[in-house]
């Protein structure tokens, strides 16, 4: 290898690798080590206790609930967000009239800007604003709903959107999706714009309607983008700390919106069990890796003849 090439590699690959190992891999290995001890967090001494932390967290009745909540989030949030943002992106780019050039609906530019706006707001601000909107007595949502006619309004008097088991999780999921749809719509718009227009002309000649075109032409061409979006959204859903902590810092009614990251935070800083919290962190990381693995695996299966 020429020295100039070696130098090039050293700078562009070597330096980032070193930083990555130091700041990502090494702390993770440290966390795995701490999860096998009873470290209290405030002293430099700890005892090795093996897998006791893992046994404890899976039997304490709270962490399994958090795992369940995160799995629900990981299934629902990416699915709904991708579907919604894909539909919007299709409407905005190729969903326009069936005659003439391939274009989006009238006024697409406005839709693009308006739907991207929520993504520019920091997650904590979204969480705080929506927790006020959901307030049972003074919130905007109940303020509007209580005025519905035919007596339906009466049901919503002081209805605790974040306090009832049935509505706490759906309300929180709505807030997360609301924040992300705009960004993924823009992502899909960029991907769809890369599809050659001749495909659409050909589909139109063959008599395909808008829905059929979307399913058979657009979707397969943006498969990689959908996979990327799915993985990113899955990572957000498996964490979801900022949204859930802003909307329901206590974990929701019957811990129905408690996430693993919230439980980890509480175990470490309120209860002073850093070893146990590291065990939760390791479980969280493992679940995220499994999720990414599943998405990649499914994508490869669907790829079919392309691969």
């Amino acid at each position, binding site marked *: 290898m020429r020295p100039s090439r070696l130098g090039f590699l050293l700078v562009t690959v070597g330096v980032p690798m070193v930083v990555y190992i130091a700041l990502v891999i090494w702390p993770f290995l440290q966390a795995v080590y701490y999860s096998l001890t009873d470290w209290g967090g405030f002293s430099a001494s700890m005892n090795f206790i093996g897998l006791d932390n893992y046994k404890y967290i899976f039997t304490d009745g709270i962490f399994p609930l958090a795992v369940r909540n995160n799995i629900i989030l990981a299934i629902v949030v990416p699915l709904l967000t991708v579907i919604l943002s894909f539909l919007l992106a299709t409407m905005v780019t190729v969903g326009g009239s069936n005659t003439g050039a391939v274009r989006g609906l009238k006024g697409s530019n406005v839709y693009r800007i308006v739907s991207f706006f929520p993504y520019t707001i920091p997650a904590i601000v979204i969480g705080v604003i929506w927790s006020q909107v959901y307030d049972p007595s003074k919130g905007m949502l109940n303020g509007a709903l209580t005025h519905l006619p035919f007596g339906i309004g009466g049901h919503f008097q002081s209805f*605790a959107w974040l306090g009832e088991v049935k509505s706490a999780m759906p309300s929180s999921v709505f807030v997360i999706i609301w924040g992300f749809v705009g960004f993924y719509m823009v992502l899909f718009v960029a991907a769809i714009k890369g599809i050659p227009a001749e495909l659409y002309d050909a589909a139109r000649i063959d008599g395909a309607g808008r829905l059929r075109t979307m399913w058979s032409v657009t979707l397969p061409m943006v498969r990689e983008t959908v996979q990327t979006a799915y993985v990113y959204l899955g990572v957000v859903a498996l964490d979801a700390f900022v949204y859930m902590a802003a909307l329901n810092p206590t974990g929701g009614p019957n811990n129905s919106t408690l996430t693993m990251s919230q439980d980890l935070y509480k175990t470490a800083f309120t209860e002073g069990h850093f070893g146990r919290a590291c065990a939760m962190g390791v479980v969280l990381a493992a679940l995220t890796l499994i999720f990414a693995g599943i998405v990649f695996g499914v994508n490869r299966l669907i790829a079919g003849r392309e691969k």
Partner: protein
Amino acid sequence: MTQIDSKVNRRTVMRTALAAGLALPVGGALASCAGGGSSGTSGGGSKAATGKTSSDNPFGFSAKSTVDAVIFNGGYGTDYVTFAGKVLEKKWPGSTVKVSPSTQIAQQLQPRFVSGNPPDMIDDSGANAIGVNTIADKLEDLSDVLEANNFEGTKISDNLYPGVKEAGLVGDKMAVLNYVMTVYGLWYSASLFEQYGWTPPKTWDDLLDLGAKAKTKKKYLFVWGKEAASYYQQLLMDSAIKQGGDEVRLELENLKPKCWSNPTIQAVLAKLEKIVKLGYFKPGGAGTQFTQAQAQWSNDESGIMYASGSWIENEMKSQTKKGFKMTGIPEPTLDSSSKMPYEALNAAPGEQYVVPSQAKNVAGGKELLRAMLSKEAATNFAKTKLAPTIVKGTVPASGFGSTALQSQIKMLDAAGSHLFNVRFVSLYGTVQDQLVPWNSFLSGQLDAAGLTKALQGITDKVRNDPSVKKVKIQ
């Protein structure tokens, strides 16, 4: 691409030098990271040389040193510590007191504790406070602060409300100095009650009657918010302790099996359950943020009473209706045959102050505490925060213009020596777990038996956890 001759030219030298220059410090940092965290550094920083002690300088504070204090920036702010710091700087010219506010005590101080250089004094309070149990063996015993004289020359412990030493004990060591006298009670607007001719309740049956009367005026007896559902747990415990005496308290504090099934607790819980079932709690609390809920009591007046500690006036200062004469009364008993008199109070000295043993200037930390306990600083606190410190006699009869402060002093004087304290919730950090069943109970979705079972489960979990050090409460 054209082939580049492999010769040492200016370009290749620059590139390799850049790569080497970047790799070296990063590699060095990585090597130091490798040891970090788990290496035990016992002994930490060197302590400031303690000077000679005298009655005017009981801790050997060296006059030209710096005191590093990290203070929780919550309802009371940090300016009262800055004031005390100025008092200290005036007494010891050349010394400096550095006050750093923080809302995340545990998160920000954990690395300092591990590396062995914690601050000289910490106000360990708030939602992110360090559980004192976790660091108890790293804290100084503060009973020598109580034995010392204050800046005006009188012995500090002669002029304190009772129970200060006991409230700070972890084992045999008084590891915590609680600074603010917090009184738990029921709070209401005396002007609202006058307007409707209502009398403040003394027993749970009085509360039930009051709830019915409030309903006729389309108001609710109580409100609650999801982060503060545990305030009603405090009400339950305090009322049962007043009714049933110390055995009730000791069973709870020492995490005994079936402590929540004690007959007195169950009797009070039955009354509370009745209040929930009759709809006297404003609905939706489980989805309401707690300061919003409190505003419904102090500003909106859709709820007429609230169970809380005496910080409530300061906390809701900007959201209290004009003419709201905030008044506090002791928590109710079941009947007049209670073991403790009705006037007995859960007067917990709160706002935990600790001095870590590994700090650089331990004497400075203790000297700052001595300054805060002197009359000048204690009176300043009472005047600006409208809450009494543990130092008696700093609040005039006018209560600095606050009806809530006046009623606090009245309650404390009427209680005399009948003050008690409930410590296990903050010692073991169980409140986050307890909030879940309490929110369900107050929403009417869980009955008294379910709540008892859930709370007992939490207590049993702490008791059976071998990694938690238990504190025996007398």
